[in-house]
């Protein structure tokens, strides 16, 4: 009995439970055929969701109104710039990645500049900067599709016993970020700002510096995702970031992080990312199209937020 109540107090467990349920439903539909492959593919794609969602989660945790809408554009710009500079050369992989990170840093500084110096609300600031970033990507790339270095392509698609290496790496990163969030001054400050920004400032916390770091970090995660995704899919495409805006918000929210800020959960990101991808797989197996997928994603986000918001207000 106690186990059950503990379970219900941990909303992020729902994400894992839902992911497993959807996987079993898919496996049952195909009578167990390819269930292992489905899981392996799910881990591959969930990895990309998780990378951007970690950054988005830190931003969302900063409190109401904080969200980064420039993630898709940042992914596209970092992907195109790094692929073009690497020009398919294996020895350029590391410099290429550093360039992607640099793109992320520039975007993050641009966002914070708009938010802090010009005092534009984050949603509008990141929305307008995303148009500038996306235009930069179009201008830089001019429709060319440069192939990634072969070693990068091999690395992003490699698997050990069915488990993608990239997924293992991102699980490790997620674990590190979990510690950063819960056991470092930086992480605790992010949570404190989200719960009460004024109180955090009065308590002497470095609110502005932490906000700055968080937006830059989010952009760097988005840029890294653009880099590995471009490596994975054989080159950068101008629309490669498109579905990651809704996905990043969805993964954060379904994973049990509060949209109002101040409460976040990293393990839930993995549960939610797997759930979203397995849901798509299930709908595809059942023969339903893109329309139903978008519809369900939207409905699930709204449902989760409405339920989460309702339960918190009743607790107080």
């Amino acid at each position, binding site marked *: 009995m106690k186990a059950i109540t503990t379970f219900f107090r941990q909303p992020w467990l729902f994400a894992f439970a839902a992911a497993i349920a959807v996987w079993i439903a898919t496996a049952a539909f195909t009578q167990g055929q390819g269930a292992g492959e489905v899981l392996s593919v799910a881990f591959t794609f969930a990895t990309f969701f998780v990378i951007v969602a970690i950054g988005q989660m830190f931003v969302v945790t900063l409190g*109401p*109104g904080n*969200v980064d809408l420039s993630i898709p554009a940042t992914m596209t710009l970092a992907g195109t710039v790094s692929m073009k500079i690497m020009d398919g050369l294996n020895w350029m992989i590391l410099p290429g990645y550093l360039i992607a990170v640099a793109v992320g840093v520039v975007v993050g500084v641009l966002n914070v500049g*708009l938010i802090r110096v*010009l*005092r*534009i*609300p984050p*949603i*509008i600031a990141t*929305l*307008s*900067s995303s*148009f*500038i970033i*996306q*235009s*930069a990507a*179009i*201008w830089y790339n001019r429709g060319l599709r440069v192939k990634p270095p072969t070693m990068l392509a091999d690395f992003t698609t490699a698997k050990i016993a069915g488990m993608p290496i990239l997924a293992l790496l991102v699980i490790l990163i997620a674990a590190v970020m979990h510690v950063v969030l819960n056991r470092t001054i930086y992480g605790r400050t992010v949570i404190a700002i989200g719960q009460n920004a004024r109180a955090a400032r009065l308590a002497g916390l470095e609110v502005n510096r932490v906000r700055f770091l968080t937006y830059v970090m989010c952009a760097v995660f988005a840029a890294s995702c653009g880099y590995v995704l471009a490596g994975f899919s054989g080159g950068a495409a101008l629309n490669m970031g498109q579905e990651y805006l*809704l996905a990043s*918000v969805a993964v954060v*929210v379904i994973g049990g992080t509060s*949209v*109002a800020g101040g409460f976040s959960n990293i393990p839930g990101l993995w549960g939610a990312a797997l759930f979203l991808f397995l849901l798509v797989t299930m709908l595809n197996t059942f023969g339903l*199209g*893109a*329309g*139903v*997928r*978008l*519809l*369900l*994603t*939207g*409905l699930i*986000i*709204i449902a989760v*937020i*409405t339920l989460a*918001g*309702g339960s918190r*207000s009743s607790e107080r």
Partner: protein
Amino acid sequence: MAHTLKRIFVTVGVLPFLLLAALVIFTLASDNFLTVQNLTNVVRQSVYLVIVSLGQMFALLTGGFDLSVGTTLAITSVVGALTMSTVAGMAPDMAWLAIVVGSIGGIAAGATIGVANGIGVAVFGVSPFIMTLGISSVGFGIALYLTGGTPVYGMPQTFGDVFGFGTLWGVPVPIYFAVLLIIVVWLIVNWTRLGRYFYAVGGNTKASTLSGINTKGVLFVTYIICATLTAIAGMLLTARLDTGEANIGASMPLESIAACIIGGVSLRGGVGRVENVVLGALFIVLVQNGMNLARIESYLQTVVLGGLLILAVIADRIRIRMMASLQD
């Protein structure tokens, strides 16, 4: 001289200056810009953005915003076109019946999006950002599902001829709709009790609740008005395109928010004027038209839009500061 300029800037805002600058620059850049034909064209093209921006203004006035206006356009267009072509198929002789039933169906479908947003924001207290983002995914999903991704044909010829391309006394028909809606919205916002409530709720939600305003009701109505206005624009756009499409209006959320902000609507709610929003929308379409005539590439055009948006926000801040200094 400098003082007079400052006074004008504080009273009317940055928009008239931007409009003037755009007119001068584009007249110099292209011979075809400052012609009656082109300017009529600009006004006709801007009808859709003007109407959507009016709706968006309501959402911004109450301190929220509506990211689902693009989806509302899509749903309206798809449902309206499907209904119209079905009715037209059943009763081919009665084109006007099909047009009326189809338009009502489309606008009702669009308004439903507003009801959904309203329930989420007003009743459950979900943040407008997440609610309208989620709903825009749901709505776009429905639109894709209904059409299977292909445009809807088969509407009566009359519909496009009258509401898309028709003219009355030399003025395109859509402009009459826009003018009528501008007047209606202006009357609602400035001369009705409900209209003032939008400002009150956006200015200070708590104070308005304590003064006895039904804040939740006002918020609920806000999103329905926004969606209904957008839906009307959606039907007009469908008439212009002669097809129902799921992917119209993708750029509408940003453009309508930009039009409002350039028109001086505050993102924090409670501040904004109808006539300036109309000018803001006109300005955006004017700049797009001018850039097309000057053969500026499309990726640069989005940079310009983003830049103008940021510029408008900065100008607004300077204006507030100057206002304070002039009062001293």
